[in-house]
């Protein structure tokens, strides 16, 4: 009748490291997105590229901020 303990899907000790890496990658992709916005002219802009970059950036930033919250003790 051994009960199976439930733990977090990601080891708790990894939260600070994960938050730093995901946030860095997210901010780099955000930078790519804004550089694209400012350096391209109205004619050359491709909406698909913009949306793809922003989607990937928001995923990384979203998970990064979640891990940042967990690492700082706010267990949401």
């Amino acid at each position, binding site marked *: 009748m051994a009960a*199976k*303990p439930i*733990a977090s899907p990601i080891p708790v000790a990894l939260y600070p490291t994960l938050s730093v890496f995901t946030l860095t990658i997210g901010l780099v992709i955000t930078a790519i997105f804004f550089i694209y916005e400012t350096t391209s002219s109205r004619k050359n802009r491709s909406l698909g590229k913009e949306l793809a970059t922003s989607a990937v950036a928001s995923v990384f930033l979203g998970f990064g*901020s979640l891990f940042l*919250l*967990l690492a700082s*003790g706010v267990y949401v």
Partner: protein
Amino acid sequence: MAARIGIFAVVVAVFLSIPAFSSAQDLQIVNAERRIDLSSHIVKDFLTLKVENIGISPAAEMLLAFSPTQIKNLAMVQALAITGKKKKKTYLPLDVKPAEQPDAPNDTGYYRVTFVSPLGPGETVSLEVLYILTNSLEPFPVEITQSESQLVYYHDSAVILSPYHVKQQTTFVKTPSTRVESFTSIEPANRAGKEIKYGPYENRASYSYAPVIIHFENNSPFAVVEELVREIEISHWGSLQITEHYRLTHGGARHKGVFSRVDYQSKRSVSGASSFNALLAVLPPRVNSVYYRDDIGNISTSHLRTGFRKSELEFEPRYPLFGGWRATFIIGYRVPLEDYLFEASDGRRYLNFTFGCPLVETIVNKLTIKVVLPEGSKDPYAILPFTVNQDLQVKYSYLDIVGRTVVVLQKDNVVPTHNVPFQVYYTFKPIYMLAEPFMLVSAFFFVFVASLAYVHIDLNIARK
């Protein structure tokens, strides 16, 4: 929803539907020995009974009788059946439930003890009963100054109140110190040091009662928590956060006159003999982020010792507590999730936690435990070994849309013997954990879409 929350677990309901019981005159108590421990403000009574069935039909249970004042102050009743002799004794826990008898004389209260196997005619069984009384020591004098010692009254009966005939009985009363002002003497009664012996009494009829009053000195800390609210927040991301709000009082003789700090510090053994200034809380072993604060701020007079089996937090309120004084504070700590959350065989998750108050030798007048389940949990269900009032609430916390279900368990008159594990079951689909990061991702995506819209919208009036 309310219909699904039962006050009793299903197992308890089965025990309540016991078949016919034998009448009170079928059993007889051959020998009874009672030991009353008055060392602290929680009165512990140990009864060793030898019960014989003098009827013709097997008896499945017996009744324990208590006077009306005792029934009000009774915190817990436990019974064990003793089998074997001398060194090979084994103890089996028995089921004890409050019982109602329609023909009870003088408002006597009853508890029904169910035997392991029905007692045949002519057979005897040995039982050990433990019952705990709270608020039973009445301070007299009611008010004392700082330099006086605390004296209390204890009201009880020299003869054990029982619905059965008792052939032989003795009562031993243990006091915390050798100072006993007076005690009612019901022959044969004598006192030696810290022990008062009432008995042996022979052949007492059922429901015989001989009231006695013992007036003695008791300077043990009368720590009473008037109200304790414990909130256990489960986060599937890896931790259990426990926050406890205490309202602590000194429940002994009220303090009158001035409080002299000089006297208190210089003559500590004489001054404030019944006051206390330190308390001990027993916390789980792998505890971290412990804080102790009140409305003013952090209280630094505390020591935390972590260990392998338990952690101890020794803390002091901002001032020593004398009779009638109060202290309000909050203790919070975090424990890892895998120590307390498990998966049952049918796929449901359950929290296995300890009920009661972590403070040692303390009575809690009103205890509320709130188990906050993560968002997306369904069908909460609590299982406890004793009766509590159950309720459901909703709490809105970080990144919540629909709110978190809170299982509220409420119990009055809680003593340290109530610190037993209890379980709260609920169902949870792991996919709901992604709701929180999804909310954050969509918030960031909204910012990007807004900046895209700003860049793409052409607000020029003139055509280029």
